[in-house]
């Protein structure tokens, strides 16, 4: 898992609950990497999962909700750090359509060791877009947060309906309709 996810997560926790909460969940989880994260490093995925679970326990919040909020939070960072990805598409559907085909391809050029989910476009019309999310990380809620912010970024109004294709959440169909 890329370091930026850890640093941004901990930044979000600090902003919401103060550094003590950051300190608390790191101390509690006691991750093997030592909890000193840098955005250019790479760390095990299990560590972020444990940090999120720990935060949920301390703040009395469900993990999916946390993932959702984190998705929304991280979008702004992405938009700020990588504006070129957002400038090219002229609307949200085009942007979503370009994730698999373009953005992830470019990410892999920079970080060959990055492990990315797939967003396959199944249907695309003016009014409707079907995307299938597939990842062993089962972070569809995180993706949902990102997409909601994406719609906002392009100032578009649309419904996002999430349907589980696999019960474990490793494969999810997003139906986005205007």
């Amino acid at each position: 898992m890329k370091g930026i996810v850890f640093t941004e997560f901990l930044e979000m926790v600090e902003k919401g609950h103060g550094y003590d909460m950051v300190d608390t969940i790191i101390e509690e989880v006691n991750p093997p990497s030592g909890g000193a994260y840098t955005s250019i490093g790479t760390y095990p995925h299990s560590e972020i999962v444990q940090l999120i679970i720990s935060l949920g326990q301390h703040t009395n919040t469900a993990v999916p909700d946390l993932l959702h909020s984190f998705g929304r939070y991280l979008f702004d960072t992405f938009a700020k750090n990588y504006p070129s990805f957002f400038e090219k598409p002229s609307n949200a559907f085009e942007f979503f359509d370009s994730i698999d085909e373009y953005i992830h391809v470019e990410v892999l050029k920079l970080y060959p060791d990055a492990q990315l989910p797939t967003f396959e476009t199944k249907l695309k019309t003016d009014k409707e877009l079907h995307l299938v999310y597939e990842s062993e990380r089962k972070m569809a809620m995180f993706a949902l947060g990102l997409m909601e912010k994406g719609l906002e970024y392009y100032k578009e109004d649309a419904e996002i309906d999430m349907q589980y294709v696999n019960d474990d959440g490793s494969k999810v169909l997003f139906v986005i309709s205007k």
Partner: protein
Amino acid sequence: MSEESSIQRRLSREIRARKSAEEILEQKAIELYNANIKLTELNKKLEKEVQYKSNQLVQNEMIYKSLVDEATDSIFNFSNELKISYANSKTLELFGVSSEELIGKEINELVRSDYLDYATAFLTQFWENEDPDRYVELPLKNQLGQEVWAGINLTYVKDSTGNYFSAIGRDITQRKNIENNLEKAILQLERSEHKYRGILRNMQLGIVELDINENVQEANKIFLDMIGYSFEEIRHKTPSDVYLVNENKPLIDHKNLGQDPTSFPVYDVKLNHKSGREINVLISLAPIYNLEGETTGSIVIHYDITQRHLLQEKMREAKELAESARKAEQKFLAVMTHEIRTPLNAILGMSHLLADTNLDDEQNEYVELVKNAADMLQALVSDILDLSKIQAGKIDVKNENFDLINHLDNCLKTIQIRHSDPNVKLQFKYDDFKELWTDTDKKLIHQIVINLLDNAMKFTHQGEIILGLERVDKNYATLSVSDTGIGIAKEKLNIIFKEFEQADDQIHGTYGGTGLGLSICQKLASLLGSKLNVESQEGTGTKFSMRIKINQQLKGAMTSGLSQPNKGISGLKILIAEDNKMNQKYITKLLDKKNIQYDMASNGVEAVRLASLSLYHVILMDLHMPEMDGYEATKAIRSKGKNSKTPIIALTASTMQSQKDEAFKVGMVDFLSKPFSPTQLFALLDNYCDNIPEKNVEENIIGENESSVVFDENLIREYLGDDKDDQNEMFELFLETVSAERMEVEGAFDSKKLDNIKMVLHKIKPTFQMIGLKDIFQLIGENEKAAANGDVNVVNRKSLILDRIDSALESVKKRIQ
């Protein structure tokens, strides 16, 4: 957890994070450095590669350039301004110039002037369309002023040296010349076609092209005008679908086409005009062949002859009208003359009676005048009657066998009784022979001679009148009447045979006469198959003459024999020796018509063989045949066997006397010159009918049953009419009655009583006549008569008569079937 320790932990975490980030960055820097070194090395390698490839390119270009230079095709480049920038050696050779002379020249200067516009247009289009390449053929001028046709492949090239046209040309002058000649030939062909089309158009021929299924493919305007249909109305239809009258359909049947490629028959057919009327056209059909020689259709040519048909119809009507008028006139003449004769006879009779009474001189003179006038009138009426009879074809020409000398002598005697002018000597002069036989009409000869002698008497006042008979050859004699009379002017000779014409109007005044005498003589002569000729000199005399056929040779054989009644030529049995197939067919056809039996030999050897087998009445012998000629064959037949006495007649196309003499020498008796008409053949055979010995006929009758039963069709028609059904009804009736009567005949003969035989023969006789069995009718009649006369031999003829009756029954049965 204390606050200090939380801050300390945060600090320591951030220091650790920074150090790990620095580590990562250091590692990345090293990676970058390494990558840079690798890239530099790669770059060097690539530069080397580029250098190598560049060298190779230069080398290749040199190779290509020499290839281009030495190429057998002309290769040259020219700029956008159409100036030549490069030309290979073949190009220089083509134009007959050096490289310096050609480079920089405008391409237009090389093109033949009349093709300049074309070339410019081509290049412009090529340029505008940005075609990758195109092909053009242009006539170019070389330095020597000769014309060279070039086929040029043009490519527009864009490369580092700029844009230009690249051309690859090839000398196609020879091909172009051939093409030009071909074009000229085609043009000539087109002109020739045009010419013939023009001719056809002016010939007013309707022309239709049919395909192999007889569907109309093309039709010219003349034809469409002819039949009144439009082309659309007849297109893809067969002629009989639209305009050909159905009965003429077989004439254009393609199955009959092309069997004889040299002749195309012409037919007179009817077509239906669109308006419904019929038109008459002459059509001719010629097949159309494809390159393989198969018939692919036909050309039908139509020539409108409707007008001609109408004209012919009118002419026929006019002719019929004229003929019926002529007939009416003849009838009128015949009736009138007959009607005139009756009172005329009374006048003549009464004048004679009156002359016998006591009359004074004056009265006698008047009666004499009346008699003379009545005599004249009677002569006139008689002549007119003769003439109208001749014209109406009512004179039957008989064939009588008589001695001319004897006959003419009688004629002379008749005249001598009538006229006895002491100043005119009347003589009969003939060659030194005692008799001269002929087969002709005795009465007509008499009439001609009397007329001619009468005429001569009338115009001769001093000198002599000679009735002459001269033999020309073995077949002909000339009969003549010559006088020393007033003669006839040369210019009048041609009118003397015309009716009611006399040489001079004055003659009528002086000599009287009807002017019909010579006309009648001429017509009678032609009825006898001869012609009356005249030679005359005014003041010296006139000679009339005609040829008469004689049969001198025959006489010896004839007189020796048999004066049996004429059996008719149907009873003859003939041997024909003739090698020519055509002639064979011709003769046998004629003989079949007359029911004459015959055997045919194709050469002399066969003729001799057949002659040794059976007896013939006549042998017709061709003189020139393979194997053995007619002379040899005649000698052989004459020397021995059944036919040693049979008349042999020569068939020959030659008229040479030497041949005829030779033929007579070997024993032939007569001639038939080829070609001969049916009448000539039958007339000749007729001469030999009398020659059939009675015994022969009987032998034939007994020996050969039904084959010798001959129906006389004329008799059948006379008795039973023309209707076949009516005839057959009678034939059936005949079978019924005669089958029963046959038993009575048998019974009568068995009784051996002449009376019985006579009665039964008398009873059955007429039925045979009625159904045309003349021969059997005669046989029965003769025996009936014999029985009546008490001839006991009749009793022995039972089987003969019964056989004949059986043959008759058999033949009738066959006829009905």
